């Protein structure tokens, strides 16, 4: 199967990959990844966060290695490596994973809103309006999706400044001594931290939409490094601000730190933060659902417009079915596990298979 042909007018500049990668990573995870990461690694959690981030740079490198050879997307890659049926099946799993990511993001965000802002928010109505917004963006094609992810990074970027407030109250001695945890604990920390980095595997789907994709490699790495920087910063601030026991009881540590921000005209900053976060969530949903719809369109003859509406309805229904805190946690855990496997096992596996197949074909 050949790679998809995308007309030049629908392609976006390679520099936007920076925003596409960054915006899909920073989602609901950053609101509360600290607890999971610090559970095992304690005050060394920031090292785990940094290590997890840097290890993913290698994975992005692998993705680009694979895709530059393939010159297509994940669907054509699967087809070429595993044949029509097995390849198609694997593609379906990937599509399901992308859509599951969308469900997780939407449901978790609605939960945050319900807990922090509107306890009686009707998740059906809000979900419908938000997904209508997503549909409106998607109907503009990938160009608009990339634009939304651009604004989804630039506009809420001021929120990074709010990390200054906890610094006034932080105890940076809590970070000492460095490296006082075992390798095993650190690894658990890395595992916990890597979950919040996931999502960039959508690269597999949208690379054909980038002009001169080989040039976008450094932008992808750059976007990821920005995420690593922000996460490490947030982690250090959190470790300084909370005591270890307190952190273990705080589900959304980032939101809690916002509570202390105070300016002459505004206090209780988390309201503004959570509201602004809608702009961060939107590209997340757009990219994942776009990737899902694009995958189905590539697998079958159904047009992406016709397939997007059922996907959105499915996302709405299934995300609303998760009603209790535990089930949302479970949803998060499972998507993370699949994502973890996808990134650290499946991508290197694809790389090896492609390498071997290339050798065999070259020899034969």
């Amino acid at each position: 199967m050949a790679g998809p042909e995308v007309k030049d007018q629908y392609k976006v500049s390679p520099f936007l990959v920076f925003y596409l990668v960054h915006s899909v990573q920073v989602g609901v995870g950053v609101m509360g990844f600290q607890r999971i990461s610090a559970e095992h690694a304690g005050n060394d959690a920031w090292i785990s966060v940094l290590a997890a981030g840097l290890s993913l740079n290698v994975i992005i490198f692998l993705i680009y290695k694979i895709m530059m050879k393939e010159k297509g997307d994940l669907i054509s890659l699967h087809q070429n490596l595993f044949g029509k049926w097995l390849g198609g099946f694997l593609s379906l799993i990937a599509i399901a994973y992308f859509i599951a990511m969308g469900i997780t993001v939407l449901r978790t965000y609605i939960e945050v809103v319900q807990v922090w802002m509107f306890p009686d928010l009707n998740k059906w109505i809000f979900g419908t309006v938000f997904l209508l917004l997503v549909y409106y963006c998607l109907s503009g094609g990938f160009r608009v999706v990339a634009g939304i992810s651009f604004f989804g990074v630039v506009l809420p970027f001021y929120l990074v400044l709010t990390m200054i407030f906890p610094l006034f109250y932080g105890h940076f001695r809590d970070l000492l001594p460095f490296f006082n945890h075992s390798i095993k604990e650190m690894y658990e920390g890395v595992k916990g931290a890597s979950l919040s980095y996931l999502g960039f595997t959508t690269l597999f789907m949208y690379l054909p939409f980038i002009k001169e994709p080989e040039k976008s490699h450094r932008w992808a790495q750059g976007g990821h490094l920005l995420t690593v920087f922000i996460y490490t910063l947030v982690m250090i601030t959190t470790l300084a601000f909370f005591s270890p026991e307190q952190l273990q009881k705080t589900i959304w540590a980032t939101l809690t730190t916002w509570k202390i921000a105070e300016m002459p005209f505004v206090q209780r900053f988390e309201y503004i933060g959570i509201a602004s976060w809608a702009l961060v969530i939107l590209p997340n949903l757009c990219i994942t659902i776009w990737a899902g719809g694009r995958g189905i369109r590539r697998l079958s003859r159904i047009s992406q417009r016709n397939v997007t509406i059922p996907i959105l309805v499915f996302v709405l229904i299934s995300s609303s079915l998760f009603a209790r805190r535990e089930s949302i946690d479970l949803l998060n855990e499972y998507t993370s596990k699949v994502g973890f496997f996808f990134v650290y096992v499946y991508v290197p596996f694809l790389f090896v298979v492609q390498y071997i197949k290339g050798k065999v074909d070259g020899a034969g």
Partner: protein
Amino acid sequence: MVKNMLRWLKKSRSPDKLKNLPELIRNLKDSGDFLHHESKQKDSSFFIYYFKTLVHETELNDHILPYLVEKPLKTLQDIPERVPIPGVIISDDLKEICEKVMRGYVIIRLNANAKDCALIPSQVKKARAVTQPEVEFTVVGSKEAFVESLDTNMHLVRKRLPVHELKAYELTVGKLTNTKVVVLYLDGIANEENVNTVKQRLEDIKVDQIVDSSVLMQLITDNRNSPFPQLIDTERPDRVTSVLCEGKVVVLSDGSPQALIGPTTLVEFFSAFEDYFVNWIVASSARLIRIFAILFSILVTPVYVATLTYHYELIPKDLLGTLVSSRQRIPLPPILEAIFLELSIELLREAGARLPTKVGQTIGIVGGIVIGTASVEAGLTSNVLLIIVALSALASFTTPVYRMSNTIRLTRFPFLLFAHLWGLLGVTVCFSFLIAHLLKLKSLGRPFLEPLYPLRVQDLKDAIIRFPLKFQNKRPIHLQSEDTVRFTPVTEKEKNDFHE
């Protein structure tokens, strides 16, 4: 009814239904201002027909008729040779004859049954004198504005751009009005694709009347279902000249004192032409104030509603005291209070726009002050909100393009509803809708949000901040100009030291 009229129109007006010239002339004689007389000389005679309301009669008597009677006319071919006016046509094409006579040509026939005739141009050119710009007035800079006559407008542009590259593509639009429309562009600078898009869209227009360029604008715009204007209209010939030099395309239409400019971007709607007349620091700060004013105008009332409906906790204690005491006696929820005030401001504006100027001012002052004070005293609205609404109305008027300020005021209402629904979260959701909408918009096929998205650093030189003219030496990328360099700046070597 409409069908009947159409049929009647077809029967009586369309020259293809008339068989020959005599029949056409008989048809034209139905109108009272259609004059015809016969000039009888010794050995030759000719017939002359024209609309007296379209023809410059002094010119006809002084510069045309004497030449026709000085020697006997043998054939029609003699007429172009004798009459010292360019543009004399000899034709037997009924459609052309009809078109020309309706544009102020004089028909000359040698005998009453002839199939062909000579057409001599002698239009009366009545036009308002060139006056000061009213909508886009600037304190410094040219005081000329376009008028309703296409020729005058073309003159105003041509005298500012005396180069042969300035091309004017002419066409007529409108089945009944036959409005002359001109597409202006600089050959070799404007992108050919842009020019062709405009030409194509103008040619595809199928309507009966074009009374103003604003109608044209709605017909050739990219997304007709968007409240945002995607072409700029201006009444300043100097602005037209300046955008032509940038590589844009301009559309002038007869009978309209507004020129259309495209392709354009969102930030251009917030740049006044005066920005180029003042120092770049002053101009840039004015632009920043304007952009702040727009955001303020759209967001501040919704944020007020959102905060007071849902998020009291956001406001620090001291400030909350002021707010609460001003709202103490108000029986209405914030949303009704806000909508009441916003609507009354809209009412005042609409009334002011419809009334004659002098009455309008009185209404504005009396209505504004009296209604405002009375509604606060009656306890219908809080004075804090009154201040906010008045300020945001004021802020919306800072947009240099009138059309955009209408849009901005309209945008506020969905924001208000969303704010009432979900507080600040609703405001963000509505804002996302706005961004998505703007992302989808195009102006003549070029992205509307450029240079913000797609981000083009080079074009930022004249967007939110206007950098010094020295840096404006390249044409904007989004115009895809065929000649990207405007000029090469002379770099003077300065002594890299303090003055001694």
